[in-house]
């Protein structure tokens, strides 16, 4: 049984227009899959729909995590089953510090794992885990006391996304354009942090426009996504080819959605 299995998935907006037009994907633990595609191809739609965003409708197909269908579940239940999405544009929650948010999120998952009983993480244990993860990901300590993503730079937001990933221990991490807005040093640190987490406990799907991040998170498989479908699939060499040749070969003659 695959960790993540996507079967003939079609995703539409609530107005009926179809964005994802039938894709299949299998991800095993320890694997990294890159989904690469031009802007506007629907990559982020796929990521958000996997997480259960209410603006998208699954018109057909299925998504299984550890053999369980996610489609009838809310975003919270999907997270509790082990799905994690690192957002391209994380939202600000004024008045809630990063630390307090992290603890609440960890406790929410612990509660779900304890069958609905409160099972809060002891404070010393939380501090220990937080200190270790912030150090590995080089998250400035002062960010932890600030309000979540409130006035953060693009790079700071991305660091905090990966900090969440490191502390929440999902089964499958989906990274949506995590590389955008990062300078090269930040990219190395963050990508290195994600690579460390990939293993028997976790698989990853890395969604990106550029090959750059894949220098630091080595993909086992690359899927080229254009026009709502996977139009090419291969190993890491495919990413390098895209970097030098661009997406032109995969675009329809008169690009419509691409910009």
């Amino acid at each position, binding site marked *: 049984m695959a960790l993540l299995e996507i079967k003939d998935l079609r995703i539409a907006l609530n107005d009926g227009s179809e964005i994802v037009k039938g894709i299949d994907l299998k991800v095993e633990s320890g694997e990294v899959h890159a989904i690469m595609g031009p802007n506007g191809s629907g990559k982020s739609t796929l990521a958000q729909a996997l*997480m*259960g*965003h*209410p*603006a998208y409708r699954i018109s057909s197909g299925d998504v299984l995590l550890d053999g369980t269908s996610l489609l009838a579940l*809310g*975003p*919270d239940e*999907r*997270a*509790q089953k082990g799905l*994690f*999405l690192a*957002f391209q544009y*994380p*939202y*600000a*929650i*004024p*008045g*809630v510090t990063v630390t307090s*948010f992290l603890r*609440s*999120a960890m406790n*929410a*998952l612990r509660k*779900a794992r304890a069958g609905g009983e409160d099972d809060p993480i002891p404070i010393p244990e939380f501090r220990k885990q937080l200190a270790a993860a912030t150090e590995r990901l080089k998250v400035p300590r002062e960010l932890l006391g600030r*309000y979540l993503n409130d006035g953060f730079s693009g790079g700071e937001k991305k660091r905090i996304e990966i900090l*969440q990933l490191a502390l*929440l221990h999902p089964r499958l991490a989906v990274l949506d354009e995590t590389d955008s807005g990062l300078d090269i040093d930040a990219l190395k640190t963050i990508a290195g942090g994600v690579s460390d987490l990939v293993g028997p406990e976790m698989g990853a799907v890395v969604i990106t426009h550029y090959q750059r991040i894949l220098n630091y998170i080595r993909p086992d498989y690359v899927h080229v996504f254009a026009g709502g479908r996977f139009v090419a699939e291969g190993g890491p060499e495919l990413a390098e080819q895209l970097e030098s040749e661009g997406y032109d070969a995969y675009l329809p003659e008169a690009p419509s959605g691409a910009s």
Partner: protein
Amino acid sequence: MSEPESDVSQIGRDYKYGFHTTDEPKFSTGRGLTREVVETISAQKSEPAWMLERRLEAYEHFLTRPIPDWGGDLSTIDFDSIFYYVKPTESEAASWEELPPDIKNTWDRLGIPEAEKKYLAGVGAQYESEVVYHKLQEELVRQGVVFLGMDVGLRDHEEIVREHFGKIVPFRDNKFSALNTAVWSGGSFIYVPPGVKVEMPLQAYFRINAENMGQFERTLIVVDEGAFVHYVEGCTAPIYSSDSLHAAVVEIIVKPGGRCRYTTIQNWSTNVYNLVTKRAVAQENATIEWVDGNLGSKLTMKYPAIWLTGEGAHGEVLSIAFAGPGQHQDTGAKAVHAAPNTTSVITAKSISRGGGRAGYRGLVNVASGARGAKSKVVCDALILDEESRSDTYPTIRVHEADANIEHEATVSKIGEEQLFYLMSRGLTESEASSMIVSGFVEPITKELPLEYAVEMNRLIQLQMEGSVG
């Protein structure tokens, strides 16, 4: 103050009038308000003649004063059905069994200890915090600080009370200040001598007796030159009252260079009209801060006021209102700049849900002669659903050309995207909503004493649990 008063000794003192036997018949003036009722209250308390005269004047004024036709709907108050004075006894108020189950349930979920629950219900005489209370009192006595119930304050410190009582909030101020002046009972009296800084917040908690949360309590705080005190009243657990009208008056005077912070968190049961007049005068270089949280009641009309009467005086109001189903919170603040170089900051936040209505009603008045005045008003409303409502009624009057007045107002809703983001981390919809709401009110909760802040957040969670899904 001679010796700390224990609650029991106060109750014992009152027994001498002979209205009480061991079999707990309680004395009350019965329903409705007459001149005789006012006279009886004063006699019960063996008050000086001037206080009785003041009560009677206020009573006459109350009769002639029309019901306010602005704010909330006050037309349904039945003044004839209210008990204006019930002598506090240990067995006062409802029995435990008579309490509405939802209130008991909320207390359970807040983890309120049994003894405290009984106190809150009005069925227990006191909450046992005697040890802390006693130590606090010893320290206060050493510093010359007076912290008493208002009735005892009048008896033991008549000269101070007479100097200030009704000077800051005259009975003619409004119909309900007139009513309070006529029938007041309970409340706190605090005097802080020059230069004394009281480090620990004084909490009504530690002076608990059956009168503490009365319907018509009257509080007077006098902070002398260069002194400081923080007074905290109320609690976040719902206070059950079988009586439907709460009309309190709070008067504060802060003398030159002094500072007073007054924190209130109230969560009246949803049958209560909560109509409170709070006003503080800050003299030269003095500071007054009102922190005011209103969670319960059917209708609250409350606008803590700061009168900046001395040069360089500063005032702040931090207020938060939560209006749930069937509730109307008409709250706000008033800042009157009556001296040069005075500053005020008003931060008001409201949340409405389930058809609740929350409004901000504010006044900033820069009087002629108050040169160099600065005032900043920020009011933010969070509306949780389509049925709920928020209004803002700011009034600004400026009589000096160089005044610097800022006013910002925002109205927001909980965004679907914010919810999705939090839920994608495993929080349920109600957990995510309460996190957003807690964040929204954080500028206020961070100013509260820790235990109040914790309770407040817990209470918001409870309120939110019923609001989604």
